[in-house]
């Protein structure tokens, strides 16, 4: 059977499964809709968190990014996993004890202020929307590449599927479909990785494989060969870094703290029955995530080695079929600059003048290939000559990753609107039924807007991801941590901290990304920190401002101080 038939079959089966689960787990009341009735098993919640977290970007793009960055790619690996340690140790158990449904719930109640609640609502909605637009686009892209369906039709199909389980089942429907989606996406990621590892190193475990000797070349380690190949073509060594240490430090920190502050991840910990389950669940979540995240760097190294050995100086007429297949999609671009009928792939911007002189002597007139980073995962099975069903599996996995993340984000948007805005702010006497209806309408409306952005993507989607993490890092994380660990923190401190933190971070990102992108170089950055890492500084500013303001303003009321005491222990002590 050909790839397309396999793709239709696998995608069809997985979609039927998702819809089946959605019908089976309808939400009966608002507690079901917001937090799945707080009855989710910690392992199931761990899987759901994994699927919620790992988006189209993790699945499709991450290995490719690492492949081109080499060692520095670790900032994404560590940034997007290390945040779970913060989440498990500093936030999840306490927020679970607090109960209720959302992040703005906590911020509003802890800081006894509807202003604080509204700041949190606006942040939650903004962060979630920037994220969700990219997901819907991802769904469209997978559809168009693998099924030759128009991108826009792909987005609409994705919208219908998400609408089905998010609107019907709310958190309950989303949780159980995410469990299924995790299984699909992890299987789809591991199968090609294991195949390639066996082919290249004879080792079944990719994590060990990329540190092993190459099959058929006794005594040559894969990473050493990759370093040698990179040098030969003028690239910097794969296992060495090129980013400045301070920037690496700040970006990694911003990603970690941002991860711990993302509302769609935090709410997942409200869905388990109790505090100790929240802790266990965080461990499961990180284990499930680490399975993919530790595989990604090996996929990156294998793909890079394959690419460098197969492409450079190959006659175009003899190039493997995948090269031409992906050329048609525009993800590989080739231009024979020196008309020698061969492909030259090398670093023509190398600072090594000897190397450049050597390439000129050979008659090379510049790099002739532009390779999209997404190809490292999407085309990997074809590059390694894997069976058709494996290629199709990658499509189903990419869709699972994009849909599960989109659903989690849409739920945050609808909950923030129906619960934090309507119920807690403008119409407290709304009935249970009315609130549930309102949440469903908000979810439907959010899907519609997300779909619109998927079809008409704002040109800045990639840039705004830095926004989502920066804002989460500079607003939610400090406010929640101080809310738990510093009883004396009051509303004046928390609100001014959040506002100053957000404004600083947003202004820095907007300046370098939108107002004068041409100035976005390390010479102009504050302390050499790029816009991607500025959230860390925003967070520090937030802490400093909040602590200073709190010193000069009245302490929080006794009821709030009791609330803090209460969330610090899993269960009431004997006599109080």
């Amino acid at each position, binding site marked *: 059977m050909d790839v397309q038939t396999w793709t239709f079959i696998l995608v069809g089966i997985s979609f039927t499964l998702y819809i089946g689960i959605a019908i089976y787990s309808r939400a009966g009341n608002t507690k079901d809709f917001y937090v799945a009735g707080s009855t989710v098993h910690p392992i199931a919640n761990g899987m759901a968190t994994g699927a919620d977290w790992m988006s189209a970007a993790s699945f499709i793009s991450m290995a490719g990014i690492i492949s081109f960055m080499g060692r520095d790619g670790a900032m994404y690996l560590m940034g997007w996993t290390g945040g779970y340690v913060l989440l498990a140790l500093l936030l999840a158990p306490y927020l679970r004890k607090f109960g209720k449904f959302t992040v703005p719930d906590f911020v509003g109640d802890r800081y006894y202020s509807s202003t604080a609640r509204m700041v949190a609502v606006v942040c939650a909605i903004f962060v979630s929307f920037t994220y969700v637009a990219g997901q819907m686009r991802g769904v469209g892209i997978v559809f168009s590449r693998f099924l030759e369906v128009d991108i826009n039709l792909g987005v609409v199909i994705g919208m219908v599927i998400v609408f089905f389980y998010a609107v019907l089942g709310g958190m309950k429907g989303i949780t159980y479909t995410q469990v299924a989606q995790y299984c699909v996406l992890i299987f789809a990621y591991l199968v090609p990785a294991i195949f390639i590892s066996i082919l290249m190193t004879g080792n079944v475990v990719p994590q060990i494989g990329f*540190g092993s000797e190459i099959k058929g070349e006794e005594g040559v380690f894969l*990473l050493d060969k990759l370093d040698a190949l990179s040098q030969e073509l003028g690239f910097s060594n794969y296992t060495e870094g090129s980013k400045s240490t301070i920037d690496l430090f700040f970006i990694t920190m911003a990603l970690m703290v941002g991860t711990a502050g993302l509302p769609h991840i935090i709410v997942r910990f409200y869905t388990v029955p109790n505090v100790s389950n929240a802790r266990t669940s965080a461990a499961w979540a990180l284990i499930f995530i680490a399975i993919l995240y530790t595989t990604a*760097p090996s996929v990156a190294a294998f793909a890079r080695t394959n690419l460098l050995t197969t492409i450079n100086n190959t006659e175009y007429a003899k190039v493997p079929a995948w090269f031409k297949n992906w050329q048609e999609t525009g993800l590989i671009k080739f231009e024979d600059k020196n008309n020698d009928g061969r492909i030259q792939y090398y670093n023509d911007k190398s600072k090594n003048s000897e190397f450049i002189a050597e390439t000129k002597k050979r008659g090379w007139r510049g790099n002739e290939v532009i390779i999209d980073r997404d190809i490292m995962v999407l085309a990997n099975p074809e590059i390694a000559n894997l069976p058709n069903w494996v290629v199709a599996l990658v499509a189903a996995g990419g869709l699972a990753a994009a849909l599960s993340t989109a659903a989690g984000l849409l739920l945050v948007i609808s909950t923030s609107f129906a619960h934090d805005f309507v119920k807690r702010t403008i119409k407290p006497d709304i009935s249970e039924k009315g609130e549930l209806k309102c949440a469903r309408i908000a979810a439907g409306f959010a899907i519609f807007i997300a779909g619109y952005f998927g079809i008409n993507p704002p040109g800045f989607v990639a840039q705004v991801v830095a926004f989502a993490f920066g804002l989460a890092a500079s607003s939610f994380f400090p406010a929640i941590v101080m809310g738990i660990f510093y009883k004396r923190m009051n509303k004046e401190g928390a609100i001014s901290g959040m506002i100053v933190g957000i404004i600083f971070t947003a202004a820095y990102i907007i300046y370098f990304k939108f107002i004068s992108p041409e100035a976005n170089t390390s010479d102009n950055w504050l302390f050499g920190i790029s816009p991607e890492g500025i959230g860390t500084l925003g967070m520090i500013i937030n802490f400093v401002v909040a602590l200073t303001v709190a010193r000069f303003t009245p302490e929080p009321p006794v009821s709030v101080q009791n609330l803090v005491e209460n969330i610090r222990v899993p269960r009431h002590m004997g*006599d109080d």
Partner: protein
Amino acid sequence: MKESEIKRKAYWKANLITVSVLLSIWFFVSFGCSILFVDQLDNIRIGGFKLGFWMSQQGSMYVFVLLIITYIYLMNKLDKKYDVHED
């Protein structure tokens, strides 16, 4: 001060110590071994990996998982000791 108040303070203090120790390891492994001292560690080799490279792309993540598991173990023990565990 009531007895429960003293116990609660002691529980919280023990909790803070646990969290600080674990977060120091978290910081040391990720920002220390994988960013600040990565080049020095790269001089040590284990099989086909340079140690700094391995820490940043593999080791740190394994340590993160172990840290959370250790945290669960220590906190469950602490909860029992102070009789604040859920049934």
